[in-house]
């Protein structure tokens, strides 16, 4: 029974729904949220094993055959991202228990949390362009609420920017879907890919492809990241961590999916543009990360650098480089959540996000300090940790295929990223201790658990790369060979 795939979306949907009715029962809300996410995680692992053994799984909603109905497709790429999403969600939830505050919890925080997960995972799993748009909106509407929930002055100012940018990009998305539907006459990814392969990708389709690329670039903060640093710094860190780990990744996933499955005929045009967008994003993001002295800003610019790297790796467009990008995207989700949660604890302890006003925290919080150090090294890609494999594969392919600029910029920006996070480490943890335990604005009780989970995973993913790589390779296999996806969806049997 393939209905198990849809459970991944139904479980958070029903959880969010049920929690509407228990607004004032905070303990019940917390436990229900946590248990439903853990069950969902188990389902995701089961589905991944299933996909690993039997190949891509599909589910035709309502029993309608693929080009006519909406199809839910669980291939390895989507499932890896879904599993990473659930892990990040569990840790952010654990962190939110301690930090988010009763006021927000009473105003449907957990409901919107789960609805956002529905949107994110739905975007990963859908096999239909318009359905992707709908899930984008589910995700974005929940994120609008989460970003403004609480109603602080700064939150309201940043949420207006965020909503404006996203409404404009959603409108462009809708227009692009209209053009594509006008040209190909279908909205199903697999069917669209077949139609374009038959008729050839002419100039018109390439134009629409670039239009669509700009839409997703805006969502993924690729080059057009001007909106990102403000809004990501405004809400409480539990929400910022969730955004940093998930939201831009959905845009990146959409670029991966569209440009590996549908628009892969004019590589010289579209993938060249993607490569340059990635390179420029890496450079500008790294400059931003190195320049700022505010913790929130540095972390936000690190999100931008990673986006550039993933897209540049994808744009090289060999199986190995795409495997590197997939490895890096999964790693990045985990490590960004970890960094944002740790940053949140640091801001919580000192009551400021200015690096120059904090120091010596390692004397009272050794575990926190060393976890931050591990996260910093993982982010930069130091060998035993998770960031290494992805970077290695991408750089290896970049040099092998003659993309020397990507290789050079990738290496230099790694250094700048390392500099930016070690700057946080040195300023925050070394030096004279300014705060005694009594002066601290919050206690770290309970907040170190999610950090520990993520740290273990970050180390495990690096050390156990041998164990993870078959799954990653399978994801890259489907990306570099679209017929695998098309056959699974259209149920073409040999």
């Amino acid at each position, binding site marked *: *029974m393939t209905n198990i795939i849809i459970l991944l979306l*139904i479980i958070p949907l029903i959880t969010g*729904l049920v929690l*509407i009715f228990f607004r004032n029962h905070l303990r019940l809300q917390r436990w229900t949220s946590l248990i439903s996410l853990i069950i969902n995680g188990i389902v995701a692992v089961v589905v991944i094993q299933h996909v690993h053994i039997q190949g891509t799984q599909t589910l035709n*909603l309502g029993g309608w055959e693929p080009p006519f109905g909406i199809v839910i497709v669980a291939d390895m790429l989507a499932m890896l991202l879904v599993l990473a999403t659930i892990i990040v969600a569990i840790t952010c939830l654990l962190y939110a228990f301690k930090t988010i505050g009763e006021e927000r919890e009473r105003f449907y925080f957990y409901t919107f949390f789960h609805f956002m997960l529905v949107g994110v995972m739905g975007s990963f799993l859908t096999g239909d362009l318009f359905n992707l748009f709908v899930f984008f909106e589910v995700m974005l509407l929940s994120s609008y609420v989460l970003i403004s929930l609480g109603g602080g002055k700064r939150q309201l100012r940043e949420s207006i920017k965020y909503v404006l940018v996203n409404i404009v990009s959603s409108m462009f998305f809708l227009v692009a879907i209209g053009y594509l539907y006008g040209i190909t006459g279908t909205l199903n990814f697999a069917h669209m890919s077949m139609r374009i392969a038959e008729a050839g990708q002419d100039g018109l389709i390439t134009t629409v492809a670039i239009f669509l690329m700009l839409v997703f670039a805006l969502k993924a903060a690729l080059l057009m990241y001007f909106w990102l640093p403000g809004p990501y710094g405004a809400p409480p860190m539990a929400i910022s961590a969730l955004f940093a780990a998930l939201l831009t990744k959905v845009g990146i996933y959409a670029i991966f999916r569209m440009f590996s499955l549908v628009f892969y005929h004019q590589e010289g045009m579209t993938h060249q543009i993607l490569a340059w967008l990635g390179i420029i994003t890496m450079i500008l993001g790294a400059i931003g990360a190195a320049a700022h002295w505010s913790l929130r800003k540095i972390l936000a610019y690190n999100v931008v650098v990673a986006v550039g790297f993933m897209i540049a790796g994808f744009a090289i467009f060999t199986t190995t480089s795409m495997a590197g990008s997939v490895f890096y995207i999964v790693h990045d989700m985990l490590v960004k959540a970890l960094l944002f949660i740790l940053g949140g604890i640091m801001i919580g302890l000192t009551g400021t996000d200015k690096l120059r006003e904090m120091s010596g925290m390692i004397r009272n919080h050794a575990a926190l300090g060393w976890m931050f150090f591990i996260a910093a090294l993982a982010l930069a890609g130091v060998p035993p940790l998770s960031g290494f494999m992805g970077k290695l594969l991408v750089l290896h392919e970049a040099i092998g295929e003659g993309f020397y600029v990507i290789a050079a910029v990738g290496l230099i920006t790694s250094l700048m990223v390392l500099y930016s996070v070690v700057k946080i480490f040195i300023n925050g943890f070394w030096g004279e201790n300014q705060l005694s335990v009594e002066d601290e604005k919050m206690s770290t009780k309970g907040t170190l658990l999610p950090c520990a989970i993520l740290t273990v995973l970050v180390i495990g993913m690096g050390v156990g790369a041998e164990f993870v790589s078959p799954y990653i390779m399978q994801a890259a296999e489907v990306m570099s060979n679209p017929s695998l996806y098309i056959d699974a969806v259209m149920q073409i049997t040999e």
Partner: protein
Amino acid sequence: MKANDVILQTVTKVVSFIILSFAAYLFFAGHHDPGGGFIGGLVTASALVLLFLAFDIRTISNGIPINYRLLVGIGLAVSTVTAVGSIVLGFPFLSHTFEYVDFPLFGEIELATSVLFELGVVLTVVGGTLTIILSISEDV
């Protein structure tokens, strides 16, 4: 000077019933004619808004004691249950079915499970619309 809205209130009493029955018509017509859950819900909401305009909020809230925020949840739950129900019965998610049933007075009528799904849409739209309107009016 005290405003006198006898005419408005009297007309509203009659008209709101006409609007509500039109909403019910639109809702049930949706399968074969223009209409359906979304428009049915909006028209229902417009009848309620008319009542809120003609009388004051407290009167109507006492007369129709509905928590519209919960109504959104109930509506979503109804739609979700019809979609999940098909899984429980062993069909793909969101499968719908229909049956022709002979009723004593009306004759043969087509009963479809998608009507239940649309019922959820109606409740959600009514709940959503009135939550927006009532929470804005509270602030002023």
